[in-house]
């Protein structure tokens, strides 16, 4: 592999700024890596090499002309396939949108382009972001570069695997219940769910609107911070967008200072049901924070026990409503239109053919939870639990600056292992869901490997709008672990042959 590919984005950007590297050469190296590994890993659903190289040459020309460019200009990036792009199909991993090319760019995509990043392609995902393994994609599962027989997490398994396998240094994802953080955890990469409203949802195909949040996927805390600074900030097209300036996240990622930081270990996110290796790496990471000057306490958030059940009512309820737009009338698949059938019959056939099994399961659950006679008992109760979770967070953040837990209870499981058992699949998001329910900032950083060589993640949670604290903690953990291992965790994957 080209050694260029293992460098973090901020180093590559510095090389380009110094004139030692062109975006075109870097993009060519990324495209060659994708060509080599995509048949094995199924990470990218679409790649437009010519368009990427043209964009890269454009950046090189602007740089050569002396133009001041942003800190990530010329860096290739992968985009999860639920962000609208005018020059790539946007399938959401579904047959419903197979081949659909949106008429506008998502705000996240527009900001990537404006900052000079080079979009190389769109990454695989669970269908309409419903899943924790990228196995529900209509286009087949993505495989984990650490072990191609295992899942890369989900729903954003494609974006995480793209970054972990050195196809691209950066990618963007969306996190509704853990879809950025859990894939980050099981691929040994950094994944951040910013504060709800911190990054615009405009042009992100909606799944559960009160929970959906775009965010960065990267190999280092600093790279993720730089990417969040590009895509984050106020957007009038998103009614939930927070109209406040984005903090200096890159400074936080490089601060290397935890003196006096109060870290709360959440009692409810650990113990029974968690793999011993996951708990061991977590405990080591907490020790490391203490050694770096943080004050560690244990906090109890009793309502977190009900976060998963409440989430599996709110999320299907919202998605059953959001996915009603896929009716075969204006865009996407239309099935069974023989000139005789009514619009309603065509809708029924289109949604039968267009949606996969998990999508149907959740739409039916959501329809049930919202139907007359059940609304109060299910959706209403779940929204009350959400208040209790928010109150638990508020109380915990009175005595702690950040909270920590494992990102997910297990390392990457085997492909096919949980597909027949929805509840086992849903358990993968046990630790990540509370932050979606409360809207606060949350991230996963690499915390080491299990005894069988699979990545484990440390989740860090911060109060709303305090995303900088995630990066402050992540930067310290990253440096300490790099020192312990004599280099980044992912360097071990760089030397490994990835094959099935």
């Amino acid at each position, binding site marked *: 592999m080209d050694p260029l590919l293992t460098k973090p984005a901020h180093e590559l950007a510095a090389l380009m700024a110094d004139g030692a590297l062109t975006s075109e050469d870097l993009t060519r190296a990324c495209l060659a890596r994708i060509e080599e590994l995509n048949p094995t890993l199924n990470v990218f659903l679409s790649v437009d090499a010519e368009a990427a190289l043209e964009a890269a040459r454009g950046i090189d020309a602007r740089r050569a002309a002396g133009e001041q460019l942003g800190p990530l200009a010329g860096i290739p990036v992968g985009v999860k396939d639920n962000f609208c792009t005018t020059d790539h199909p946007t399938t959401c991993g579904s047959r419903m949108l197979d081949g659909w090319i949106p008429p506008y760019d998502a705000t996240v995509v527009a900001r990537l382009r404006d900052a000079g990043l080079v979009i190389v392609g769109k990454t695989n995902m669970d269908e309409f972001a419903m899943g924790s393994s990228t196995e529900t994609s209509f286009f087949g599962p993505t495989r984990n570069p650490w072990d191609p027989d295992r899942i890369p997490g989900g729903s954003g398994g494609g974006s995480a695997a793209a970054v972990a396998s050195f196809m691209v240094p950066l990618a963007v994802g969306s996190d509704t219940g853990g879809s950025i953080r859990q894939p980050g955890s099981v691929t040994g990469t950094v994944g951040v769910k910013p504060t709800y409203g911190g990054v615009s949802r405009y042009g992100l195909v909606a799944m559960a609107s009160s929970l959906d949040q775009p965010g960065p996927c990267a190999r280092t805390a600093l790279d993720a911070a730089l990417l969040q600074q590009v895509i984050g900030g106020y957007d009038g097209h998103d009614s*939930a967008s927070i109209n406040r300036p984005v903090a200096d996240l890159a400074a936080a990622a490089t601060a290397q200072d935890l003196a006096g930081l109060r870290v709360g270990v959440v009692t409810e996110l650990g113990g029974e049901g968690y793999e011993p290796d996951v708990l061991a790496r977590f405990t080591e990471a907490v020790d490391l924070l203490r050694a770096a000057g943080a004050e560690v306490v244990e906090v109890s958030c009793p309502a977190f026990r009900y976060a998963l059940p409440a989430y599996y009512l709110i999320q299907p309820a919202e998605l059953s409503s959001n996915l009603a737009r896929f009716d075969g009338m204006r865009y996407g698949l239309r099935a069974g239109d023989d000139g005789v059938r009514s*619009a309603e019959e065509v809708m029924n056939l289109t949604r039968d053919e267009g949606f996969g099994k998990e999508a149907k399961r959740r739409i039916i659950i959501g329809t049930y939870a919202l139907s007359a006679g059940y609304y109060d008992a299910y959706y209403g*109760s779940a929204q009350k639990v959400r208040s209790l979770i928010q109150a638990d967070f508020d109380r915990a953040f009175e005595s702690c600056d950040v909270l920590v837990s494992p990102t997910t209870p297990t390392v990457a499981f085997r492909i096919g292992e949980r597909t027949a058992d929805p509840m086992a699949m849903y358990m993968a998001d046990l630790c990540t869901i509370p932050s979606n329910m409360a809207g606060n900032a949350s991230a996963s950083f690499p915390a080491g490997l299990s005894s069988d060589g699979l990545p484990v993640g440390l989740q860090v949670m911060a109060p709303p709008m305090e995303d900088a604290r995630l990066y402050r903690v992540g930067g310290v953990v990253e440096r300490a672990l790099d020192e312990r291992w004599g280099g980044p965790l992912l360097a071990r994957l760089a030397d490994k042959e990835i094959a099935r």
Partner: protein
Amino acid sequence: MGITADDVARLGALARIRLTEQECHDLAPELNVILDSVRSVSEVAGPDVPMATHAIPLTNVFRDDVVTPSLTQDQALSGAPDQEDGRFRVPQILGEE
């Protein structure tokens, strides 16, 4: 109180998804497992707990009432399964009789 295959068929009709008898039969027990595990939510939150409405509280969001560029007719129709005279062409909506 469990969900039956008939309930699934009714929910499928509400959600406009044609489900075969086999699918309804297969989905019912799966949905019951899921509903059994989420039923605990109705036991923890008493009448005094308010329902959350927003992840992050925001006051009403307004924009200035000015015209801004939007999609052209061609762009809006670019993904249409069928079109005619610059409009979406859809199957019949009302009955013939």
